[in-house]
């Protein structure tokens, strides 16, 4: 073999060797897609689910996911419990209420936290400068949800009881009409319904500053005794969410566009709320402590009839998330 040919061959062999050293991943064949369904709450909190769906990350992870949009995490929880869907997205407060009722659910991961998602809106004209002035007023709230706990907390901080106000149970999508028709004088609800009410009613409604009072998380839940789901389905779903969260952190503008498109919202809203949401996948002891704390609160302040606090540790399955992202689990 000529010396030149030998050297050229060695040169290209060296290049190939470098290629292998850097372990460039070659695409693998995609597995057969497993069909699952999820009830997703129509809120910016569900951004990782929307982004994963939009970018086909579920398919990449071998899942064919059917999305069913609902109003609120409580509705999502109910659909999972009734078997209508395989997965749901609910706040820690919903999980707390569900646990106190002995619901058959399992939490496999938190994917967002927010300290200013739930707000209190008050009709202008009430001249409410403090929470105390809400005594005797009718306040719209979604029972058994984060807004329920939030309102209770707000009142308690002003040394008020829930009985000091008149709670009117309603879903967030009904609150605008209720305020306009003066069926209620205030509402406690979450985004984007707060924004929609404010946008529609403009100066006729005030948002009471309540940032940092209540930091909630949104969680991926499924039925504990769910049959028919493959053992690795949880990992695949969490993997898709993990990739979606990475995309959100690296491409916020594109993620916002997806959210606007899926929720039918405008840039003003996104600009208003985006910094309030922190998307990260985790399953920490602090979540357990938070839910237990909320459960004690709910019992102590009469939000529920139950008197016993269950072992909320039993409602958590940390194994799937540990397989995806070991550092995200701190039990």
């Amino acid at each position, binding site marked *: 073999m000529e010396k030149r040919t030998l050297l050229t061959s060695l040169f290209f062999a060296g*290049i190939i060797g470098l290629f292998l050293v850097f372990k460039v991943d070659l695409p693998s064949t995609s597995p057969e897609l497993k069909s699952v369904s999820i009830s997703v709450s129509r809120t910016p909190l569900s951004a990782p689910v929307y982004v994963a769906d939009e970018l086909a990350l579920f398919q990449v992870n071998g899942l064919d996911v059917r999305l069913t949009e609902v109003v609120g995490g409580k509705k999502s929880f109910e659909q999972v419990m009734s078997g209508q869907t395989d997965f749901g997205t609910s706040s820690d407060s919903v999980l707390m209420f569900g646990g106190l009722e002995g619901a058959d659910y399992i939490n496999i991961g938190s994917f967002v936290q927010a300290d200013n998602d739930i707000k209190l809106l008050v009709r202008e004209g009430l001249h409410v400068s403090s929470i105390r002035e809400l005594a005797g007023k009718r306040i719209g709230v979604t029972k058994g949800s984060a807004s329920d706990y939030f309102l209770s907390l707000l009142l308690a901080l002003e040394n008020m009881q829930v009985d000091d106000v008149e709670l009117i149970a309603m879903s967030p999508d009904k609150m605008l009409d209720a305020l306009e028709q003066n069926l209620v004088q205030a509402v406690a609800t979450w985004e984007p319904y707060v924004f929609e009410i404010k946008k529609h009613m403009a100066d006729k409604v005030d948002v009471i500053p309540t940032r940092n009072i209540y930091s909630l998380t949104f969680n991926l839940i499924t039925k504990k005794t769910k049959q028919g789901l493959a053992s690795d389905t949880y990992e695949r779903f969490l993997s898709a969410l993990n990739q979606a969260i990475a995309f959100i*952190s690296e491409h916020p503008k594109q993620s916002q566009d997806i959210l606007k498109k899926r929720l039918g919202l405008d840039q003003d809203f996104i600009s208003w709320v985006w910094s309030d949401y922190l998307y990260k996948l985790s399953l920490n002891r602090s979540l357990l402590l938070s839910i237990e704390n909320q459960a004690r609160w709910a019992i102590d302040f009469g939000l529920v009839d139950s008197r016993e606090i269950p072992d909320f540790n039993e409602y958590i399955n940390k194994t799937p998330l540990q397989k995806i992202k070991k550092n995200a689990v701190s039990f």
Partner: protein
Amino acid sequence: MKVRSKLYLLASMVFGVMVIMNLSLFWAYYHIDEALQRDRYIVGVLKSVSGLSHQLRSVIDHGEAQAFVQWQQEQDGLQLLLTDMPDFSPKLSGLLKSIEQRNRGIVSLFQHLESQQINKAKKQRTRIALHLADKAFFQMEAIREDGFHLLALSRAEIEEVILVQAFSFIGVFILVTLMMSVVAVRLSGEINRSLRRLIRGLTVAGKGAFDTEIPEYSDDEIGELAHHFNKMLARLKTTTVSRDKLRSLVDDRTKELQRLTETDTLTGIANRRYYDYHLAEHIASSKRNKSSLAMLMIDIDFFKGYNDGYGHDAGDLALKQVAESISKILPRETDVVARFGGEEFVVVMPATEISGACLVGERIRLHIRNQGIPHLYSEVDKVVTVSIGVAAFKSDMLTEINLLKQADAALYEAKKNGRNQCVVHDDGSYRVV
């Protein structure tokens, strides 16, 4: 490209590799140092959080006023850290924002705790205060979790940076080394081939083949060298031809000179010098071949009288005629006639028996007599005659002395018997042929 340029190119490439390696090292150091700075920052945040947690415990469990102040100081320190964040990747900065958010929550809770008079004894605290205290603790716990998660990710990032830098360095090193090797081998190969061609050409030329032309493929210094060598070879070739001619001339001249020194100028036949030089060769040859050698001594009768009577010029002419006659009669080219001296001639006949020599001798005598060269001063005849002595020996008895001696003795007998005759020495006695 000139050889010097090729060497400069190689040196430049080595220098370039060193520069690239150093730049890679600096780049690697810079990135690793950045990653370590971020790691130190996170450790600082965690330390601050740990301090805050301790103070919070003091506040909530003991309600000490001093603890409030210290907690606030710790909180101010943490706020300062969180507002002066170095650049983090989006993944890590998200966790820091989470810490910030939760810390804001704790600050808010703490304000409410203060309003709930947390500095009262624990059993006097309101339910709200107790719940808020719990809330503050799990928020603190959440901050700690975020902090450790952040630290783990930061350490993983540092490892990744180090690995990437290491692999990049190795990769660049291998790539550049491979490229340099290819270039170096190519350049050295060119130089080597040029030198080999030069060496081959010089080797051939060194063996005397000045017709060789060294190929002048390269336009570098070696090509120049080859060109000048070719010019030198051309000049050497010219010089060698002249020398060969000279040698040839010298050889010719030498042969001519030798011929002149061995030739009798008058008669044109060999002279005594030739006879003396070559007789030994004839004897040696006869011994080798085990053959006999014959000798004829021929003398012109009454030549002194001829010279005196007719003059030296006529005498010289007669000598020439006699020499010519002898040469004509000799049967073979190997037979040699030489002028022995004056009017005496000697004939040497290799591989000739006595009888053959006698025959030749008698024929010579008769031929010369029949030439009819007038010689009125001869007492034998009216024409020039010769007397001949013949001797022949076989190889085993042959010596230079006895051959000449016997031939001469036989000549003497011929003279004594009346001249104009051929006498042979045969087996110890003399007889007329």
